[in-house]
C-alpha cells in the first residue's frame, strides 16, 4: 500500500484506538450503574467478533471448501473448549488439508 495513504489510515486508526482507551482511564473513576449499559458493554466484544468472523471467514481463503473445513474444525474444537492456540491450529490444519487436496489431489 502507498506509504502516505497507509500513514493516514494508521494515524486515524491508532489515534482513535488510543483515545478510546485513554479518555475513560483519565476521566472516569466511578463504576457504571446502569444495568442495560453494563450488559451492552458485556455483549459488544462477542457481537463484534461474531459479525467480523461470519460470513467473512468463508471467503478468507479464496476457496470456500477449505474455508468451510476450517470453520467446522474451529467450531468443533471451540465447543470442546480447547485453548485459543489449539483451535487456531486445528482451523489452519483443516483448511490446509482441503487446500492441498484441491491443489494437488487428482480424485
Amino acid at each position, binding site marked *: 500500500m502507498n506509504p502516505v495513504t497507509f500513514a493516514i489510515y494508521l494515524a486515524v486508526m491508532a489515534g482513535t484506538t488510543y483515545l478510546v482507551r485513554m479518555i475513560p482511564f483519565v476521566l472516569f473513576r466511578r463504576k457504571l450503574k446502569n444495568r442495560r449499559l453494563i450488559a451492552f458493554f458485556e455483549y459488544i466484544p462477542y457481537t463484534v467478533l461474531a459479525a467480523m468472523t461470519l460470513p467473512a471467514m468463508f471467503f478468507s481463503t479464496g476457496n470456500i471448501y477449505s474455508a468451510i473445513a*476450517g470453520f467446522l474444525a474451529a467450531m468443533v474444537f*471451540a465447543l470442546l473448549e480447547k485453548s*485459543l492456540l489449539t483451535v487456531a491450529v486445528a482451523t489452519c490444519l483443516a483448511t490446509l488439508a482441503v487446500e492441498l487436496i484441491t491443489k494437488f489431489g487428482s480424485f
Partner: protein
Amino acid sequence: MKNDKPNKRSNTFKQGILDGIPVALGYLSVSFSFGILAVTSGLSLWQAVLVSLFNLTSAGQVAGLSIMTASGGLVEMAISQVVINLRYGLMAISLSQKTDESVTVPARFLLAYGITDEIFGVASGADHPIGRRYQLGLMVLPIVGWTLGTFIGAAAGAIFPDFLSNALAIGIYGMFVSIVVPKAKHSRSILICVMISVVISALFYFEPHLSSAVSGGFATIIAAITAAAIGAAFFASDKEEGAS
C-alpha cells in the same frame, strides 16, 4: 513490608514482567496470524508491524485492515475502531477502581495504551492494588510479543506459497471462534446476541442492495451494536451472568 510473604504477588515492575509472560506467548501466535493476513491483504511487512505496534488489538486491527485494503473512508475507520474497541474504555474504568495513588494522570496517558483484554484480565485478577510500575511491567512483554509475532507472520506470509498462507491467514478467524463459542455455550443471552449479529452481518454481505450500499466496516458496526442493544434491552433484567 506487606509484600514479603512468599506466596503473595507483589506490586512491582518485576512481578508485572513475570505476569506478562503467558500473555506475551499467547500474543505471538495471534499476531502471527494477523501478520500473515496483513501481507496477504496487501500491506508490506513493515506496515503490518507498525499497525500492530500502534494499535495492540486483534479485532480492531483485522477490521482496520479490511477498511484500508478496501480503500474505505476515514470516518468509517474511526467509527469502527471506537465501536470495536469500546470495551477497552469499559476496562479502563474498571481498572481505575483498582489502581493505587502511584497511577497519576501522566502515568495514565502511557498505561492506557496497554489496556487489552488479556492485560486487563491479569491486572483484574491480581490480589493487590495496581501500581504504575506493576502495570508498566505487565505491558512490556505482551507489546513485544504482539509486534514480534506480526513481524514473523508477515515475513512468513511473504515467502510462503498461497495455499499455505491461505491456510494460516484463516487462523485468526479460528481464534475469534474460540473466544466467542465457549462464552455462547454457557450464556444463553450471549448466544442469542451472537446469532443476531451473524444474521445481520450475513444480510449486509449477501443482500445485493445492502452490500453495495454499506461497506464491510459499517456492516460490522451496525450488526454488533444492533445485536448488543437488543440483548441489553431484553436480557439486562435477568440475573447477571457474570457481567464485568
